[in-house]
């Protein structure tokens, strides 16, 4: 697939739909926390929405997406159903994980979201295993694993990329480079000029892309997904982006220079993409507003469902530790 291929209008609108659904979810979940509806650490992906939105339109339902504590954008993009999703965020029995996982660990196997890890780097070796199974079974499934710039400095990253290269696994390693690992700025923690450069050390393609540009992101993702599907092996995709709401809710981003933050906010990818869609004639303001309204309504319905759902019974502690009937 040539990198200059253009996404169709339908694809672009789908990306917009997904990205704005993510933004809506993020805004609302923060409101719920502030309103005291749930006490939980929360890692907002605000600013990074276009990355999974532009990837996911290249994926099938049967493809796998592995993500992290900062993962609700990846989950929503993969199509997790909203009601059990929000219920999981709120720790309810009707959540995808019966409330046992929580916001840091939302999974939904039926949506191709088997693993969401809180351990930096740990998703990458597991993604290889998912991809190995696909390779063995001869399906054309692709596994996408998301992680941050900081995660590219941990051992598991290295081991996973090398193994994937040697085994030629259908994995797309997506580094969502938001410039910071917790409070540590990229260059203070990372020796590489770009994370994409590290692909050289594994003999695989390393692609740097503007993750805040929907078209570029779609092009890079579709090429890498096609490569993986064709059995040509893994790709390391570095999607540059920014993180607007700090590492963790409550973090005031004191370690980010004011002008850096201001410039990032001025370049917020969502309004930019919206304006571009209109300017290019892909959609009218009204059409996009409709999308936003539909998202909001659907999400609200899910919030209501979740809030009305019961908490899990304490007996759940003894369940799912090992197979039913076995001794833990």
């Amino acid at each position, binding site marked *: 697939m040539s990198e200059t291929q253009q996404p169709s209008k339908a694809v672009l609108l789908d990306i917009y739909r997904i990205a704005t659904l993510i933004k809506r979810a993020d805004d609302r979940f923060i409101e719920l926390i502030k309103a005291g509806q749930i*006490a*939980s*650490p929360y890692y907002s992906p605000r600013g990074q929405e276009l990355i999974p939105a532009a990837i996911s339109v290249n994926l099938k339902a049967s493809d796998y997406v592995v993500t992290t504590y900062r993962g609700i954008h990846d989950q929503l993009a993969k199509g997790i159903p909203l009601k059990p999703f929000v219920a999981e965020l709120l*720790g*309810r*029995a009707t*959540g995808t*994980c*019966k*409330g*046992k*996982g*929580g*916001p*840091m*660990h939302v999974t939904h196997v039926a949506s191709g979201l088997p693993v969401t*890890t*809180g*351990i*930096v*780097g740990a998703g990458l070796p597991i993604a290889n295993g998912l991809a190995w199974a696909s390779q063995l079974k001869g399906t054309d499934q692709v596994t996408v694993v998301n992680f941050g710039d*900081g*995660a590219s*400095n*941990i*051992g*598991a990253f290295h081991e996973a990329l090398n193994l994937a290269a040697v085994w030629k696994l259908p994995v797309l390693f997506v580094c969502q480079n938001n410039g910071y*690992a*917790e*409070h*540590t700025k990229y260059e*203070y*923690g*990372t020796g590489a000029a770009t994370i994409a450069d590290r692909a050289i050390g594994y003999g695989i393609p390393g692609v740097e892309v503007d993750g805040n540009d929907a078209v570029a992101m779609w092009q890079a993702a579709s090429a890498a997904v096609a490569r993986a599907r064709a059995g040509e092996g893994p790709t390391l995709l570095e999607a540059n982006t920014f993180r607007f709401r700090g590492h963790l809710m409550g973090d005031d981003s*004191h*370690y980010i220079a004011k002008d850096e933050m201001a410039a990032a906010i001025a370049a917020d990818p969502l309004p930019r993409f919206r304006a571009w869609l209109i300017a290019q004639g892909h959609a009218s303001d009204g059409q996009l507003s409709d999308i936003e309204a539909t998202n909001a309504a659907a999400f609200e319905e899910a919030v209501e469902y979740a809030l009305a759902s019961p*908490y*899990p019974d*304490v007996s*759940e*502690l*003894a369940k799912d*530790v090992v197979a039913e009937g076995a001794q*833990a």
Partner: protein
Amino acid sequence: MSTAAKKMNSAQAINLALHDAMALDESVVVLGEDIADREGGGVFKCTAGLSTKFGTGRVKSTPIAEQAIVGAAVGGALAGLRPVAEIMLMNFTTVAMDQIVNHAAKLRFMTGGQTHVPLVIRTTTGAGFGTGGQHADYLEAWFAHTAGLKVVAPATPADAYGLMLSCIFDDDPCIFIENLPLYFVPGEAPEPGVRVPIGKARIVQEGSDITLISYSKTLHDVIGVAKELAKEGIAAEVIDLRTISPLDMDTILASARKTGRVVVAHEAQVDFGVGAEISARLHKELFGQLKAPVARVGAARSPVPFSKPLEAAFVPTRERILAAIRETLN
């Protein structure tokens, strides 16, 4: 004394201990993720001010790379430094176990005493804040099982301060276990410079009816339960272990001899946990002398759950501690 009246929380006490140790001895160095002031002085502020005061040579923020962190601490220790490495949360020690167990713990022995590894690994943990399945485990039994490591787990700001000083100036590796919710609980301020010896338990309150042994956050629940018991006229002796390895068997045995009844409570898993070791030793040393078997209370046999009601039931609750005490008393 004026300082005795002062209050301080455990995060502040640890911070103070690090300041005092660094001021005292320039071989004391600190490293970990986000610990320098440029990065905010640690996500829980335990290292705030250190890099400003002592420089970014001695106080180093690191990449997210726990093997590299502990390895740098081991190497630094071999070369004469006294590194204090922060592993942000105890579950993250799982990626650094090789450096801790195969190296820090063993190099003194494997080199026939040519080297030693005076390092402290500070790490925090504990349920209560909804951090879920991979951020709140208590793994002290693993480290206590390993020859060559010392394991401490203070429950008060003063002990956190005093044990930190002792660990830093100890010539062998120490695993220093903090508790996340306790960071924010104020307590009596430590006396400046006063070290709490490693391997010495503290009798929190004396009593003759039953011995309650605990440490870290669970101690506070045990103390709460002991207060309830007192209202019923039951005098519990409460022991804060403070050090898990080596165990202060003198204190434990003396108390158990006196009361004849012992309950051990900790937030870690019961099975193959610290309570097992204490029980095994007590039954051996006081065979035929105990009035009831040693009871153990710990977390539910599961990973740490997210959902509030589950998390609340997962930890050793006061109800479960009390139930174990009642069973032991009868």
